[in-house]
Protein backbone atom coordinates (compact mmCIF):
# COMPACT_ATOMS: atom_id res chain seq x y z
CA UNK A 1 0.00 0.00 0.00
CA UNK A 2 2.99 2.31 0.34
CA UNK A 3 3.66 2.95 -3.31
CA UNK A 4 0.79 3.39 -5.68
CA UNK A 5 0.24 0.33 -7.84
CA UNK A 6 -3.11 1.57 -9.11
CA UNK A 7 -4.11 0.02 -12.40
CA UNK A 8 -6.97 1.79 -14.14
CA UNK A 9 -10.05 -0.22 -14.96
CA UNK A 10 -13.83 -0.31 -14.96
CA UNK A 11 -14.48 -3.44 -12.89
CA UNK A 12 -16.97 -3.41 -10.00
CA UNK A 13 -13.98 -3.22 -7.65
CA UNK A 14 -12.63 -0.14 -9.43
CA UNK A 15 -16.05 1.50 -9.25
CA UNK A 16 -16.64 0.69 -5.56
CA UNK A 17 -16.05 3.52 -3.09
CA UNK A 18 -12.66 3.66 -1.34
CA UNK A 19 -14.36 3.78 2.07
CA UNK A 20 -16.36 0.63 1.36
CA UNK A 21 -13.23 -1.20 0.22
CA UNK A 22 -11.25 -0.14 3.27
CA UNK A 23 -14.09 -1.23 5.55
CA UNK A 24 -14.25 -4.54 3.69
CA UNK A 25 -10.51 -5.03 4.17
CA UNK A 26 -10.85 -4.27 7.88
CA UNK A 27 -13.62 -6.87 8.32
CA UNK A 28 -11.78 -9.41 6.15
CA UNK A 29 -8.50 -9.02 8.06
CA UNK A 30 -10.29 -9.14 11.43
CA UNK A 31 -12.01 -12.41 10.51
CA UNK A 32 -8.72 -13.88 9.24
CA UNK A 33 -6.87 -12.99 12.44
CA UNK A 34 -9.79 -13.79 14.79
CA UNK A 35 -10.45 -17.24 13.35
CA UNK A 36 -6.89 -18.05 12.41
CA UNK A 37 -6.79 -21.58 10.98
CA UNK A 38 -5.87 -23.40 7.76
CA UNK A 39 -9.56 -23.55 6.81
CA UNK A 40 -10.03 -19.76 7.25
CA UNK A 41 -6.87 -19.15 5.25
CA UNK A 42 -8.12 -21.42 2.47
CA UNK A 43 -11.53 -19.74 2.35
CA UNK A 44 -9.89 -16.29 2.48
CA UNK A 45 -7.48 -17.22 -0.29
CA UNK A 46 -10.26 -18.51 -2.55
CA UNK A 47 -12.20 -15.30 -1.89
CA UNK A 48 -9.16 -13.12 -2.68
CA UNK A 49 -8.42 -15.06 -5.88
CA UNK A 50 -12.05 -14.56 -6.92
CA UNK A 51 -11.84 -10.84 -6.20
CA UNK A 52 -8.63 -10.52 -8.23
CA UNK A 53 -10.52 -12.16 -11.09
CA UNK A 54 -13.44 -9.76 -10.56
CA UNK A 55 -10.99 -6.84 -10.71
CA UNK A 56 -9.63 -8.09 -14.02
CA UNK A 57 -6.27 -9.25 -12.67
CA UNK A 58 -4.57 -12.53 -13.53
CA UNK A 59 -2.34 -14.95 -11.68
CA UNK A 60 0.78 -12.95 -12.58
CA UNK A 61 -0.51 -9.86 -10.75
CA UNK A 62 -1.54 -11.99 -7.76
CA UNK A 63 1.92 -13.56 -7.54
CA UNK A 64 3.69 -10.21 -7.99
CA UNK A 65 1.79 -8.77 -5.02
CA UNK A 66 2.79 -11.70 -2.78
CA UNK A 67 6.37 -11.94 -4.09
CA UNK A 68 7.87 -9.34 -1.70
CA UNK A 69 6.79 -11.59 1.20
CA UNK A 70 8.79 -14.61 -0.03
CA UNK A 71 11.63 -14.26 2.47
CA UNK A 72 9.28 -13.80 5.42
CA UNK A 73 7.31 -16.86 4.32
CA UNK A 74 10.47 -18.94 3.85
CA UNK A 75 11.75 -18.02 7.32
CA UNK A 76 8.49 -17.95 9.26
CA UNK A 77 6.80 -21.06 7.88
CA UNK A 78 9.45 -23.64 8.91
CA UNK A 79 10.04 -21.87 12.22
CA UNK A 80 6.31 -21.90 13.14
CA UNK A 81 5.97 -25.49 11.89
CA UNK A 82 8.88 -26.58 14.05
CA UNK A 83 7.77 -24.68 17.20
CA UNK A 84 3.95 -24.93 17.00
CA UNK A 85 2.98 -27.46 14.35
CA UNK A 86 1.78 -27.24 10.74
CA UNK A 87 -1.70 -25.93 11.53
CA UNK A 88 -0.41 -22.86 13.38
CA UNK A 89 2.28 -22.33 10.75
CA UNK A 90 -0.23 -22.37 7.89
CA UNK A 91 -2.65 -20.24 9.94
CA UNK A 92 -0.13 -17.52 10.81
CA UNK A 93 1.77 -17.33 7.52
CA UNK A 94 -1.34 -17.87 5.40
CA UNK A 95 -3.20 -15.09 7.24
CA UNK A 96 -0.31 -12.72 6.59
CA UNK A 97 -0.14 -13.54 2.88
CA UNK A 98 -3.90 -13.43 2.30
CA UNK A 99 -4.27 -10.15 4.23
CA UNK A 100 -1.45 -8.55 2.19
CA UNK A 101 -3.05 -9.79 -1.03
CA UNK A 102 -6.34 -8.21 0.07
CA UNK A 103 -4.64 -4.88 0.90
CA UNK A 104 -2.76 -4.96 -2.42
CA UNK A 105 -6.06 -5.44 -4.25
CA UNK A 106 -7.30 -2.16 -2.80
CA UNK A 107 -4.11 -0.45 -3.93
CA UNK A 108 -4.57 -1.93 -7.41
CA UNK A 109 -8.14 -0.70 -7.76
CA UNK A 110 -8.16 2.60 -5.84
CA UNK A 111 -6.57 5.95 -6.65
CA UNK A 112 -4.43 7.42 -3.89
CA UNK A 113 -6.51 10.61 -3.99
CA UNK A 114 -9.63 8.57 -3.17
CA UNK A 115 -7.83 6.99 -0.21
CA UNK A 116 -6.73 10.45 0.93
CA UNK A 117 -10.33 11.65 0.74
CA UNK A 118 -11.33 8.79 3.06
CA UNK A 119 -8.51 9.63 5.47
CA UNK A 120 -9.51 13.30 5.47
CA UNK A 121 -13.19 12.38 6.04
CA UNK A 122 -12.33 9.98 8.88
CA UNK A 123 -10.20 12.63 10.56
CA UNK A 124 -12.83 15.37 10.23
CA UNK A 125 -14.01 14.93 13.88
CA UNK A 126 -10.41 15.49 15.01
CA UNK A 127 -10.58 19.03 13.59
CA UNK A 128 -12.11 20.06 16.94
CA UNK A 129 -8.83 18.95 18.56
CA UNK A 130 -6.78 21.15 16.24
CA UNK A 131 -5.94 18.43 13.69
CA UNK A 132 -6.11 19.55 10.06
CA UNK A 133 -7.39 16.47 8.15
CA UNK A 134 -6.15 17.83 4.80
CA UNK A 135 -2.68 18.29 6.24
CA UNK A 136 -2.64 14.69 7.51
CA UNK A 137 -3.79 13.51 4.08
CA UNK A 138 -0.97 15.57 2.54
CA UNK A 139 1.47 13.86 4.89
CA UNK A 140 0.34 10.46 3.60
CA UNK A 141 0.63 11.67 0.00
CA UNK A 142 4.17 12.91 0.56
CA UNK A 143 5.17 9.66 2.24
CA UNK A 144 3.85 7.66 -0.71
CA UNK A 145 5.61 9.97 -3.16
CA UNK A 146 8.90 9.81 -1.23
CA UNK A 147 9.31 6.04 -1.69
CA UNK A 148 10.23 6.00 -5.42
CA UNK A 149 12.24 9.23 -5.05
CA UNK A 150 14.42 7.83 -2.26
CA UNK A 151 14.71 4.50 -4.09
CA UNK A 152 15.98 6.41 -7.15
CA UNK A 153 18.45 8.38 -5.04
CA UNK A 154 19.73 5.17 -3.48
CA UNK A 155 20.18 3.60 -6.91
CA UNK A 156 22.14 6.61 -8.21
CA UNK A 157 24.29 6.78 -5.07
CA UNK A 158 25.09 3.08 -5.45
CA UNK A 159 26.16 3.65 -9.08
CA UNK A 160 28.25 6.68 -8.09
CA UNK A 161 29.93 4.65 -5.34
CA UNK A 162 30.77 1.91 -7.82
CA UNK A 163 32.08 4.47 -10.34
CA UNK A 164 34.50 5.76 -7.70
CA UNK A 165 35.65 2.25 -6.84
CA UNK A 166 34.19 2.45 -3.33
CA UNK A 167 31.81 -0.54 -3.56
CA UNK A 168 32.24 -1.44 0.11
CA UNK A 169 32.10 2.05 1.60
CA UNK A 170 28.95 2.61 3.65
CA UNK A 171 29.77 6.29 3.99
CA UNK A 172 29.94 6.72 0.20
CA UNK A 173 26.40 5.36 0.00
CA UNK A 174 24.70 6.79 3.07
CA UNK A 175 26.08 10.36 2.98
CA UNK A 176 24.83 11.32 -0.51
CA UNK A 177 21.48 9.60 0.10
CA UNK A 178 20.91 11.51 3.35
CA UNK A 179 22.08 14.84 1.91
CA UNK A 180 20.02 14.48 -1.26
CA UNK A 181 16.95 13.32 0.66
CA UNK A 182 17.12 16.36 2.91
CA UNK A 183 17.63 18.66 -0.08
CA UNK A 184 14.71 16.97 -1.83
CA UNK A 185 12.51 17.52 1.25
CA UNK A 186 13.53 21.16 1.26
CA UNK A 187 12.66 21.59 -2.41
CA UNK A 188 9.34 19.77 -1.99
CA UNK A 189 8.51 22.15 0.87
CA UNK A 190 9.24 25.12 -1.40
CA UNK A 191 7.19 23.60 -4.22
CA UNK A 192 4.22 22.95 -1.93
CA UNK A 193 4.40 26.50 -0.62
CA UNK A 194 4.65 27.82 -4.18
CA UNK A 195 1.57 25.80 -5.20
CA UNK A 196 -0.31 27.28 -2.25
CA UNK A 197 -1.19 23.78 -1.04
CA UNK A 198 -0.55 24.57 2.61
CA UNK A 199 -2.03 28.10 2.61
Amino acid at each position, binding site marked *: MLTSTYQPGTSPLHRAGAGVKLLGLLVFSTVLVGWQSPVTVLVGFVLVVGLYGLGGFGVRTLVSQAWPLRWIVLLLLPFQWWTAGWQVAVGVVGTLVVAVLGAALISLTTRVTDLLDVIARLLEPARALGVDPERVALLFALTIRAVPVIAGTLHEARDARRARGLEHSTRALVTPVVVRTIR*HADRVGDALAARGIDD
Partner: protein
Amino acid sequence: MSHRYGDREVLKDIDLSLVEDRIGVIGANGSGKSTLARLLNGLVVPSTGRVLVDGMDTARDGAGVRRKVAFVFSDPDAQIVMPTVAEDVAFSLRRHGLGKAQVAERVAEILARFGLGGHADHPAHLLSSGQKQLLALASVLVTEPEVLVCDEPTTLLDLRNSRQVSALLEGLPQRVVLVTHDLELLRGWQRVLVIDEGRVVADSPAAQSIGHYQALMGAGRPC
Protein backbone atom coordinates in the same frame (compact mmCIF):
# COMPACT_ATOMS: atom_id res chain seq x y z
CA MET B 1 13.39 46.54 -2.10
CA SER B 2 16.43 44.59 -0.86
CA HIS B 3 16.94 41.07 0.39
CA ARG B 4 19.63 39.41 2.42
CA TYR B 5 20.36 35.88 3.58
CA GLY B 6 22.12 36.36 6.92
CA ASP B 7 24.93 38.84 6.32
CA ARG B 8 24.87 38.40 2.56
CA GLU B 9 22.83 40.93 0.62
CA VAL B 10 21.62 39.09 -2.48
CA LEU B 11 19.37 41.80 -3.92
CA LYS B 12 20.12 45.51 -3.58
CA ASP B 13 17.88 48.51 -4.18
CA ILE B 14 15.55 46.79 -6.63
CA ASP B 15 12.77 49.04 -7.88
CA LEU B 16 10.75 47.44 -10.65
CA SER B 17 7.25 47.48 -12.07
CA LEU B 18 6.62 44.31 -14.08
CA VAL B 19 3.71 44.80 -16.44
CA GLU B 20 4.81 43.17 -19.71
CA ASP B 21 3.41 39.77 -20.78
CA ARG B 22 6.82 38.22 -21.32
CA ILE B 23 9.65 39.10 -18.95
CA GLY B 24 12.97 37.29 -18.86
CA VAL B 25 15.56 37.36 -16.09
CA ILE B 26 19.17 36.42 -16.79
CA GLY B 27 22.38 36.59 -14.82
CA ALA B 28 25.33 34.59 -13.60
CA ASN B 29 24.94 31.85 -10.97
CA GLY B 30 24.48 33.45 -7.57
CA SER B 31 23.55 36.84 -9.05
CA GLY B 32 20.20 36.90 -7.22
CA LYS B 33 17.84 36.13 -10.10
CA SER B 34 16.24 33.08 -8.44
CA THR B 35 15.67 35.10 -5.27
CA LEU B 36 14.02 37.79 -7.37
CA ALA B 37 11.72 35.15 -8.87
CA ARG B 38 10.85 33.74 -5.43
CA LEU B 39 9.93 37.20 -4.21
CA LEU B 40 7.22 37.39 -6.85
CA ASN B 41 4.97 34.73 -5.33
CA GLY B 42 5.86 35.26 -1.71
CA LEU B 43 8.13 32.22 -1.33
CA VAL B 44 10.66 34.77 -0.08
CA VAL B 45 9.68 38.10 1.47
CA PRO B 46 12.01 41.09 1.14
CA SER B 47 14.24 42.09 4.06
CA THR B 48 13.46 45.74 3.36
CA GLY B 49 10.82 47.29 1.14
CA ARG B 50 7.75 45.64 -0.33
CA VAL B 51 6.67 43.42 -3.19
CA LEU B 52 3.14 44.12 -4.37
CA VAL B 53 1.13 41.89 -6.71
CA ASP B 54 -2.06 43.56 -7.88
CA GLY B 55 -1.85 45.69 -4.76
CA MET B 56 -1.40 42.68 -2.44
CA ASP B 57 1.68 42.69 -0.24
CA THR B 58 3.47 39.32 -0.52
CA ALA B 59 4.49 39.53 3.14
CA ARG B 60 0.93 40.04 4.38
CA ASP B 61 -1.19 38.12 1.91
CA GLY B 62 1.05 35.34 0.65
CA ALA B 63 -1.89 32.97 0.10
CA GLY B 64 -3.73 35.53 -2.03
CA VAL B 65 -0.58 36.23 -4.04
CA ARG B 66 0.03 32.52 -4.66
CA ARG B 67 -3.49 32.14 -6.05
CA LYS B 68 -2.54 34.69 -8.70
CA VAL B 69 1.14 33.82 -9.21
CA ALA B 70 2.14 30.22 -9.96
CA PHE B 71 5.73 29.02 -9.75
CA VAL B 72 7.64 26.28 -11.56
CA PHE B 73 11.10 25.12 -10.47
CA SER B 74 13.92 23.56 -12.47
CA ASP B 75 13.55 20.12 -10.85
CA PRO B 76 10.11 18.69 -11.60
CA ASP B 77 10.72 15.73 -9.29
CA ALA B 78 10.50 18.07 -6.32
CA GLN B 79 7.16 19.43 -7.50
CA ILE B 80 5.30 16.23 -8.25
CA VAL B 81 3.48 15.17 -5.13
CA MET B 82 1.08 12.43 -6.19
CA PRO B 83 1.81 8.97 -7.61
CA THR B 84 -0.02 9.31 -10.91
CA VAL B 85 -0.13 12.09 -13.51
CA ALA B 86 -3.85 12.89 -13.24
CA GLU B 87 -3.76 12.74 -9.45
CA ASP B 88 -0.93 15.26 -9.29
CA VAL B 89 -2.83 17.77 -11.40
CA ALA B 90 -6.02 17.14 -9.40
CA PHE B 91 -4.08 17.68 -6.18
CA SER B 92 -3.65 21.39 -7.03
CA LEU B 93 -7.45 21.74 -7.06
CA ARG B 94 -7.95 19.97 -3.73
CA ARG B 95 -8.73 23.15 -1.82
CA HIS B 96 -10.65 24.86 -4.58
CA GLY B 97 -14.03 23.48 -3.54
CA LEU B 98 -14.76 21.85 -6.89
CA GLY B 99 -16.84 18.69 -7.35
CA LYS B 100 -15.22 15.46 -8.54
CA ALA B 101 -16.69 15.80 -12.03
CA GLN B 102 -15.44 19.38 -12.38
CA VAL B 103 -11.95 18.39 -11.19
CA ALA B 104 -11.86 15.45 -13.61
CA GLU B 105 -12.96 17.70 -16.48
CA ARG B 106 -10.31 20.34 -15.78
CA VAL B 107 -7.60 17.72 -15.31
CA ALA B 108 -8.49 15.97 -18.59
CA GLU B 109 -8.58 19.29 -20.42
CA ILE B 110 -5.18 20.49 -19.27
CA LEU B 111 -3.50 17.09 -19.73
CA ALA B 112 -4.79 16.99 -23.31
CA ARG B 113 -3.48 20.54 -23.88
CA PHE B 114 -0.03 19.53 -22.61
CA GLY B 115 0.09 16.31 -24.60
CA LEU B 116 -0.17 14.16 -21.48
CA GLY B 117 -3.71 12.89 -22.03
CA GLY B 118 -2.50 9.37 -22.72
CA HIS B 119 -0.47 9.30 -19.49
CA ALA B 120 -3.22 10.27 -17.05
CA ASP B 121 -3.03 7.04 -15.03
CA HIS B 122 0.71 6.45 -15.46
CA PRO B 123 3.06 6.70 -12.48
CA ALA B 124 4.42 10.26 -12.51
CA HIS B 125 7.94 9.20 -11.51
CA LEU B 126 8.26 7.05 -14.63
CA LEU B 127 7.70 9.94 -17.05
CA SER B 128 10.63 11.36 -19.02
CA SER B 129 12.25 14.56 -17.72
CA GLY B 130 10.45 16.61 -20.35
CA GLN B 131 7.10 15.05 -19.56
CA LYS B 132 7.69 15.63 -15.84
CA GLN B 133 8.32 19.32 -16.48
CA LEU B 134 5.17 19.49 -18.60
CA LEU B 135 3.30 17.83 -15.74
CA ALA B 136 4.73 20.35 -13.28
CA LEU B 137 3.52 23.14 -15.55
CA ALA B 138 0.09 21.53 -15.97
CA SER B 139 -0.22 21.07 -12.21
CA VAL B 140 0.26 24.77 -11.52
CA LEU B 141 -1.63 26.09 -14.55
CA VAL B 142 -4.75 24.03 -13.82
CA THR B 143 -5.57 26.55 -11.09
CA GLU B 144 -5.68 29.25 -13.79
CA PRO B 145 -3.20 31.72 -12.26
CA GLU B 146 -2.72 35.15 -13.80
CA VAL B 147 1.07 35.01 -13.73
CA LEU B 148 3.53 32.14 -14.15
CA VAL B 149 7.04 32.45 -12.74
CA CYS B 150 9.51 29.82 -13.98
CA ASP B 151 12.93 29.36 -12.39
CA GLU B 152 15.13 27.67 -14.99
CA PRO B 153 12.44 25.24 -16.19
CA THR B 154 14.59 23.84 -19.02
CA THR B 155 17.89 23.40 -17.17
CA LEU B 156 17.48 19.62 -16.82
CA LEU B 157 15.96 19.04 -20.25
CA ASP B 158 17.44 17.97 -23.57
CA LEU B 159 17.08 20.20 -26.63
CA ARG B 160 13.84 18.63 -27.86
CA ASN B 161 12.10 18.82 -24.48
CA SER B 162 13.49 22.29 -23.90
CA ARG B 163 11.97 23.45 -27.20
CA GLN B 164 8.65 21.84 -26.32
CA VAL B 165 8.50 23.63 -22.96
CA SER B 166 9.63 26.86 -24.63
CA ALA B 167 6.87 26.65 -27.25
CA LEU B 168 4.35 25.96 -24.54
CA LEU B 169 5.45 28.97 -22.51
CA GLU B 170 5.24 31.15 -25.62
CA GLY B 171 1.63 30.16 -26.20
CA LEU B 172 0.35 30.68 -22.67
CA PRO B 173 -2.27 33.35 -22.12
CA GLN B 174 -0.70 34.10 -18.73
CA ARG B 175 1.93 36.71 -18.04
CA VAL B 176 5.24 34.81 -17.82
CA VAL B 177 8.37 35.70 -15.86
CA LEU B 178 11.17 33.35 -16.90
CA VAL B 179 14.51 32.98 -15.14
CA THR B 180 16.90 31.14 -17.43
CA HIS B 181 20.43 30.60 -18.67
CA ASP B 182 19.05 29.61 -22.06
CA LEU B 183 19.28 32.85 -24.02
CA GLU B 184 17.57 31.26 -27.04
CA LEU B 185 14.38 30.97 -24.99
CA LEU B 186 14.21 34.73 -24.62
CA ARG B 187 14.71 35.79 -28.25
CA GLY B 188 12.01 38.33 -29.09
CA TRP B 189 10.78 38.75 -25.52
CA GLN B 190 9.44 42.15 -24.62
CA ARG B 191 11.60 42.77 -21.60
CA VAL B 192 14.68 41.08 -20.18
CA LEU B 193 16.32 42.01 -16.90
CA VAL B 194 20.01 41.34 -16.38
CA ILE B 195 20.95 40.81 -12.73
CA ASP B 196 24.54 41.10 -11.62
CA GLU B 197 25.70 40.91 -8.01
CA GLY B 198 22.18 41.64 -6.75
CA ARG B 199 21.48 44.66 -8.95
CA VAL B 200 19.54 45.15 -12.16
CA VAL B 201 22.24 46.20 -14.61
CA ALA B 202 20.16 46.09 -17.77
CA ASP B 203 16.41 46.36 -18.33
CA SER B 204 15.41 46.46 -21.99
CA PRO B 205 13.99 44.33 -24.83
CA ALA B 206 15.62 40.93 -25.28
CA ALA B 207 18.17 41.78 -27.96
CA GLN B 208 19.77 44.64 -26.02
CA SER B 209 19.71 42.86 -22.65
CA ILE B 210 21.17 39.65 -24.07
CA GLY B 211 23.95 41.68 -25.74
CA HIS B 212 24.64 43.40 -22.44
CA TYR B 213 24.72 40.06 -20.60
CA GLN B 214 27.07 38.47 -23.14
CA ALA B 215 29.41 41.46 -22.87
CA LEU B 216 29.28 41.19 -19.09
CA MET B 217 30.12 37.49 -19.12
CA GLY B 218 32.78 37.92 -21.80
CA ALA B 219 34.54 40.42 -19.58
CA GLY B 220 35.75 37.56 -17.43
CA ARG B 221 33.53 38.14 -14.43
CA PRO B 222 33.11 35.08 -12.18
CA CYS B 223 30.07 32.94 -13.11
